[in-house]
């Protein structure tokens, strides 16, 4: 959560574009990564991310904190945008497209990884999980969101999120062990 987020959100709700711009700068990488792992395509991820922030800006006046963060609200819009995208377009993800290069991931980052193969295997294995399992894993372990925020974003209870997380990790482990 960005420092002074509540204040920025209040200003954004009053139509202050600078305040929304600050929220955009903070949340863009998070939402982009979330969408990228869901669609496994750089160009599509950029389109859906832009659409997500466009919807958020147009509807920011309707956002009511009510116990969950602005970030959870954004993730929820992103999830719906991905669902809408798949409803209109058939998912066409090739194993080759899942490679870090195809995703537009910096080569210096790939070099940091212990084994490049692990990276590709993990991305492919994540693609084999259900939508909600992917959401929970990405939000929990990539974005380090607390269970409560993940629960709000996926519209489930915290206990349900813990169960989904456990199940998703188990599946991922099994899939990776087979390869």
């Amino acid at each position, binding site marked *: 959560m960005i420092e002074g987020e509540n204040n920025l959100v209040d200003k954004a*709700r009053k*139509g202050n*574009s600078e305040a*929304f*711009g600050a929220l*955009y*700068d903070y949340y*863009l*990488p998070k939402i*982009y*990564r979330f969408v*990228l*792992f869901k669609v496994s395509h*750089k160009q599509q991820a*950029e389109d859906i*991310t*832009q659409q997500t*922030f*466009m919807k958020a*800006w*147009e*509807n*920011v*006046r*309707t956002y009511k904190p009510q116990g969950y963060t602005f970030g959870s609200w954004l993730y929820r819009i992103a999830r719906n945008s991905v669902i809408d995208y798949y409803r209109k377009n058939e998912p066409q993800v090739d194993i080759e497209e899942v490679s870090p290069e195809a*995703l*537009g*991931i*910096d080569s210096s*980052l790939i070099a*940091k*990884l212990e084994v490049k193969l*692990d*990276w590709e295997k*993990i991305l492919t294995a994540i693609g084999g999980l259900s939508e909600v399992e992917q959401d929970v*894993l*990405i939000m929990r*372990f*990539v*974005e*380090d969101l607390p269970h409560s925020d993940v629960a709000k974003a996926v519209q489930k209870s915290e206990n349900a999120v813990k169960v989904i997380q456990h199940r998703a*990790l188990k599946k*991922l*482990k099994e899939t*990776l*062990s087979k390869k």
Partner: protein
Amino acid sequence: MKEEHIIKQLSMLKNIQPDADFARSARTTILYRSEPTPVRFFGLTQSLSTTLSIGLVVMFFVFVALGGVATVFRTPLSPTFQGVDEQSLASEAGSINQTIDFHLNEVAYISGEEENALAMNAAPNTGDANSDKEIDLLLTQAKSY
């Protein structure tokens, strides 16, 4: 592969950053080519859509209560109950009409006879009148004697 290793790999994915040019152009597009929808307008559209939805549901229930599609396509002369044979109903109605006509004719005939009888009774008896004249004449003659 251990669970810890998977989590470590996943956490490294947070180093992925969107393209800087994309981030800049998207920011401009979002903030300067669109604007937040006014709450009043949002509320109005919400209330209109809610009213419309309620109206449609009420109309649907009224439609179902009135008999649905069968009522809409029914002609005014169609039988009220489905499954009733129209031809048998028509012939039955025809025979009832005939019976009524027959009884009406009978009533007309009987009432005509009664009228004739009354007319007969009401008509002046010319025979009796003549006999009265004869009696008067005889009485007159007797007085003259």
